[in-house]
């Protein structure tokens, strides 16, 4: 299967300047997508998830426009051809 991951500008440097990554995860879940991303871009992977595997508190992830918080989190289904957006939440100061 193939999945497109869309990154915010703040993370593009960690993907060689790319804002779009085409990944081929081993499974159809968000966890599998993020595992595939971390395998090729380990620092980028650490920016999105902590070492316990949790998506960081102020990172929002959407699968085909749906917030994964309400779709099972890391277990959220990611179908073939899905678009996964990674976005920073509104926070800071």
């Amino acid at each position: 299967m193939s999945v497109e991951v869309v990154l915010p500008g703040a993370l593009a440097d960690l993907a060689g300047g790319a804002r779009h990554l085409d990944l081929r995860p081993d499974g159809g879940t968000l966890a599998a997508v993020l595992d595939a991303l971390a395998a090729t871009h380990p620092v980028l992977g650490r920016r999105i998830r902590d070492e316990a595997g949790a998506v960081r508190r102020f990172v929002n992830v959407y699968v085909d426009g749906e917030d994964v918080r309400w779709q099972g989190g890391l277990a959220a289904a990611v179908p073939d051809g899905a678009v996964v957006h990674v976005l920073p939440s509104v926070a800071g100061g």
Partner: protein
Amino acid sequence: MTDLLAIGTRKGLWLARSEDDRRTWTLDGPHLLAQEVAAVSIDNRRAAPRLLAGVQYGHWGPSVTWSDDLGGSWHETDSGAIRFPADTGAALGRVWQLRPDTADRPDVVWAGCEPQSLWRSTDGGCSFSLVRGLWDHPHRPTWEPGAGGGAVHTVLPDPDTRRVTVAMSTGGVYVSDDGATGWRPHNRGISAVFLPEPPEYGQCVHKVAADAGDPRRMYAQNHFGVFRTDDGGASWASIAEGLPVDFGFPIAASPTTPGTAWVVPLVADVQRVPPDGRLRVHRTRDAGASWTEVGAGLPDGSWTAVLRDAFCTDDHEATGLYVGTRDGCVYASADEGDTFSTVAEHLPDVLVVRAARLP
């Protein structure tokens, strides 16, 4: 000879250099803009001095990054320098302290982190191992976080033995005599005003500094109270008499002159500002038996605070002092606190300052 001052703030790192024995400073930065730098060290044991920074990438989590060209380029380990082992179920919250060990342990660097944990690197800070003896200590589940979070914020490796002393908020002081394997609380005599009885551990010790003459003599700025131990922490006694107030965050000891130490008093508990808005340093020359207000050149009308790591010394014979404030000012003294000059203004909140002489 260059004196280098690293200034970590809530939104980046600045470097100040002096080429004239600390009379004037040139500010360079920001480095790591928009990243919180709560811990920094200048490791000048190496051929090329290494800047090591504990950073928080805003939304994107904490990490350790280093520069071997004084901020020209920064690097981090792909997998992360500090990673909790999977069996702990924990995740790094913030790096609070980066402490290079002594010159005869050239690649050893200690890190104090949130959640309360101690880490040891043997490769100059590129990767760290969790000190399991402290993490697995039966007291750990009952260590509570202070208002800023629960962290090991002080690491004091003994230069002559395998002893290591740490302090945390809260939890207090813990000591290992076997190279960081076994740990015992060492808080007898340190108050805990937020508990009904003085506990064995759980004190909110804000910072500890070791005396120049004897590493077993240490000074502690507590959450109310300033204390000294002469027996490596086995017992502590108040040395607050003579200070205007006994609250504050940092404490620093001269690395060259035994008995000399400094505090930055703040009115507390709620206000946490300098008494009467006068930012001043108080100095002892007799290990806390008496204190003298010093700090000509520090401001009046300063309703700010100095955090626990935003105060440091250098290692000149006449000890230099460096003070950073939450309103983004940095002051330097080349005469042990008698007089200060302004190094920087209008920076973000200063979280940490560290000074070193570069070869």
